[in-house]
């Protein structure tokens, strides 16, 4: 089957709040091929989490998808009925959340939950369920998986719980996993372990991965492609190598320069002035205009996402040369 596995076009998810309409996601285009890892990068308020939820139809009122299309393997997901979505979730598209307790039921043992998740989409005897669960726990790097099956979530550490959540996501060999900041709340060494496992799993099982994060370091080591979000829109996409080495959008460049890792110790970091505008009061035109050193009168018009090189940029003054 040719064509991208997931194709998002013009997706818009708005929230109706007392203070007005909040355009959390306002027209994004994404495309993921089978077996690729996409890093969806953005800071708080960029809309990256809402994007992940929208793909799976998990947006609750007062939010709703108000436009656009999400095609998964040729099937349109926007407007799909609950039963259709349920058949896809967990089986062909799975999600891993930042807090593993959003996936795990605190009153069921690990084995019980995994069996439940397995039987949601296929028939399996208890023995089969147990065997598959045990295999998956081993696959995600949990030591002594047989014993862990009878453990309860509160008996496991944060890192272990997240691994169990990932194992559950893998139960039905999904084509796509959407991971929303799954390692942000974990210690750095555990984070390293999970990243290692996820990448290995992605390579071995060929599952496509959307990794939502604000951590550029993680994305730079994990992703094949990167999409950068700002104020509800995608401002830059492209192969990771290109986006990181030669960022085209001033925001991407500013973000990369803000990371203290490589700067001269004690020096002033290049900083993006100001802060993200409130989504309720976005300035007309380019949302980044008020913080951008390259802004001009032309930026009063919202720029289109234009193909450039191997990717796309939403900017009137897309940066060309490397610093």
């Amino acid at each position: 089957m040719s064509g991208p596995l997931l194709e998002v076009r013009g997706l818009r998810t708005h929230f109706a709040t007392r203070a007005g309409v909040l355009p959390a996601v306002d027209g994004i285009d994404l495309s993921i091929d089978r077996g690729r890892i996409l890093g969806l990068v953005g800071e708080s308020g960029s809309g990256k989490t809402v994007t992940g939820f929208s793909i799976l139809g998990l947006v609750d009122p007062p939010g709703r998808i108000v436009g656009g299309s999400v095609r998964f393997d040729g099937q349109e997901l926007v407007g799909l009925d609950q039963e259709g979505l349920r058949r896809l979730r967990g089986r062909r598209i799975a999600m891993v959340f930042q807090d593993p307790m959003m996936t795990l039921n605190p009153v069921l043992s690990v084995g019980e939950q995994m069996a439940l998740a397995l039987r949601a989409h296929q028939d399996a005897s208890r023995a089969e369920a147990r065997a598959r669960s045990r295999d998956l726990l081993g696959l995600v790097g949990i030591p002594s998986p047989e014993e862990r099956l009878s453990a309860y979530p509160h008996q496991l550490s944060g890192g272990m719980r997240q691994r169990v959540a990932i194992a559950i996501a893998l139960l039905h060999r999904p084509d796509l996993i959407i991971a929303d900041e799954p390692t942000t709340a974990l210690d750095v060494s555990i984070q390293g372990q999970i990243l290692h496992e996820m990448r290995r799993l992605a390579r071995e099982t060929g599952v496509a991965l959307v990794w939502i994060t604000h951590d550029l370091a993680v994305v730079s080591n994990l992703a094949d492609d990167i999409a950068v979000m700002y104020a509800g829109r995608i401002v830059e996409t492209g192969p990771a190598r290109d986006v990181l080495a030669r960022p085209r959008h001033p925001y991407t460049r500013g973000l990369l320069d803000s990371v203290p890792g490589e700067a001269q110790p004690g020096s002033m970091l290049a900083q993006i002035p100001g802060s993200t505008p409130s989504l309720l009061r976005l300035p007309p035109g380019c949302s980044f205009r008020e913080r951008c050193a390259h802004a001009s009168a032309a930026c009063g018009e919202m720029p289109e996402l234009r193909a450039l090189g191997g990717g796309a940029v939403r900017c009137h003054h897309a940066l060309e040369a490397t610093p």
Partner: protein
Amino acid sequence: MSAPLLELSGVSKRFERRPNLGERIAAALGAGPAGEVVHAVDDVSLSIAPRETLALVGESGCGKSTLGRVAAGIHAPTSGTALLAGAPLMSGGARPRKATTRVQMVFQDPFASLNPRMRVADILAEGPLAHGLVTRADAPAYVAGWLGRVGLDPSFASRYPHQFSGGQRQRVAIARALAMQPDLLVCDEPVASLDVSIQAQVLNLFVELRRDLGLTCLFISHDLGVVRHVSDRVAIMYLGRVVETGPTAEIFAAPRHPYTKALLDSVPRLRREGAADGDFRPIAGEIPSPLAPPPGCHFHPRCPVAEPRCREARPELRGVAGRQAACHLAGPG
């Protein structure tokens, strides 16, 4: 070499959960020990020279936050001494109280560290007024001055914390600490809750203030990139103990303790040239619970070069002054 500003000697901090009546009865009947003891900080000795920034680095359970609070005068050490400019931080007696205002703290969560029901002006002025650093008449100007120093519009003084963004609130928290005119600033993960772009702003503010005010800092963080950027020296902690200390540049270039080496390897670093085949070299195993740390060297179950003696004896910090590692296998110097 001047006298250190902060001197912690053999500091330990133990937290006990006293058993309730039911547990005590069970223990008396032979169900095992009642109550739990956590050695959050286990015999730590550190010093910070004036105008120096020492970073405390470690993962959860390492005790860096607790040690920071001992240095800030929030907790009294269970044993050992904590001296600020030669004088004890805490008063003595059954209920020790902080005996000085010369050390102040900036907390991690900007949303929780400001009283939601107080205006910024009151938050900033409360401490100085209580300790006579400013008169009531001068307070508004004093507050305006500090707000300006941290890059905030002085008119914000009449606002409430919830009207600010995370980065702005953290600036208010820094202003609150500085308004007490401390000699030592303890910062507990001050930028961990902030977005990357805001983090850069606050780090720049921090670098600027440190330079302008000649501050001495104890900077607690788990983010090695941030630590490398702001600190002169680093102390790495693991499960309540310091495992390595030294100048930042040296530690990053040539770590001596296996945990430091493993930590530096396992942390994903931003690679501008990008590569999806970036090498993650994770540390094996989980961090043990602080309630039951492994005997001898706490790190030995996860250590790639552990030997039998690592399980038996706790390694002492060895090496030259200012550059030490607590490992049986790390050679001297």
